[in-house]
C-alpha cells in the first residue's frame, strides 16, 4: 500500500537531527522567558508591528530571530519525523499512523478546550505558543508508542 504524501524512510533520521536540537533550544527559551539566547539579525518581514511603533509591510527589520529559528527547526523536524515512511510501511502501519493522527488531533483539542476554560490572563498566551506544536508532539509520541507496543508484543519463540 503506497501513500504518496509520505517521504522516504531516510528523511526520518534527518527529522530527528533537526527536532532534537530544536527541542533543546525550545526548553532553554521557555526557561529564560524567551530572552535567554539573543540572535540579532536583519530579516524580511511581510508584516511587523511593534508594541510602541508603527506598522511595517514588506520590509527588512532588525530583530531577535531565535524564536523564529527554533520554531522553524521544530516544525520542519517534526514534519519530517511524522511524515516519513517507516522501514516497512505496510497497511497495518498505515492504519496505526491514521489512528494515531486522529488521536493526536482529538487529544490536542481536548487539552486546548480545558486550557480555554480554565486558564486566564497572560498564561493563556503561553497556551497558544505551546498549542502551535502540540499536534506534532502528541502524534509523534502516540505513533511511536503504538509501534513500540506492537513490536514488544511479538514473541521470540518460533511458533507461538
Amino acid at each position, binding site marked *: 500500500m503506497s501513500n504518496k504524501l509520505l517521504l522516504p524512510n531516510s528523511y526520518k533520521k534527518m527529522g530527528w537531527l533537526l527536532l532534537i536540537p530544536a527541542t533543546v533550544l525550545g526548553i532553554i527559551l521557555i526557561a529564560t522567558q524567551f530572552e535567554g539566547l539573543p540572535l540579532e539579525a536583519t530579516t524580511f518581514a511581510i508584516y511587523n508591528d511593534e508594541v510602541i511603533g508603527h506598522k511595517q509591510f514588506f520590509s527588512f527589520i532588525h530583530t531577535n530571530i531565535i524564536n523564529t529559528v527554533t520554531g522553524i527547526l521544530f516544525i520542519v523536524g517534526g514534519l519530517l519525523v511524522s511524515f516519513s515512511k*517507516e522501514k516497512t510501511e505496510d497497511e*497495518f502501519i498505515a*492504519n496505526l499512523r491514521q489512528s494515531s493522527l486522529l488521536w493526536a488531533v482529538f487529544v490536542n483539542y481536548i487539552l486546548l478546550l480545558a486550557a480555554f476554560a480554565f486558564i486566564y490572563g497572560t498564561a493563556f498566551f503561553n497556551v497558544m505558543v505551546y498549542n502551535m506544536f502540540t499536534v506534532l508532539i502528541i502524534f509523534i509520541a502516540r505513533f511511536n508508542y503504538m*509501534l513500540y507496543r*506492537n*513490536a514488544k*508484543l*511479538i514473541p521470540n519463540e518460533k511458533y507461538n
Partner: protein
Amino acid sequence: MKNTIKIERAINNLTQEELATKVSVSRQTINAMEANKYVPSTVLALKIAKVFNKPLEQIFILEETD
C-alpha cells in the same frame, strides 16, 4: 473475523518473519493479525492464502459479530 494464520504457519514451517517477507509486510502486521487485532485488506488476505495454497475461506473465518 478469526483466522488460522498461526496454525497454517506451523504446518508450513514458517516464522512470522518469513511469512511477512513472503507477503511483503512487517512482522508486526502478521503478529497483529494472529492476535486478532487487525483485519487485513483483501489484497493481503489473498496473498496469505496464496502462500498457504488454500482457499481464502479456510484461513479467514467470519464470526457472529461480523
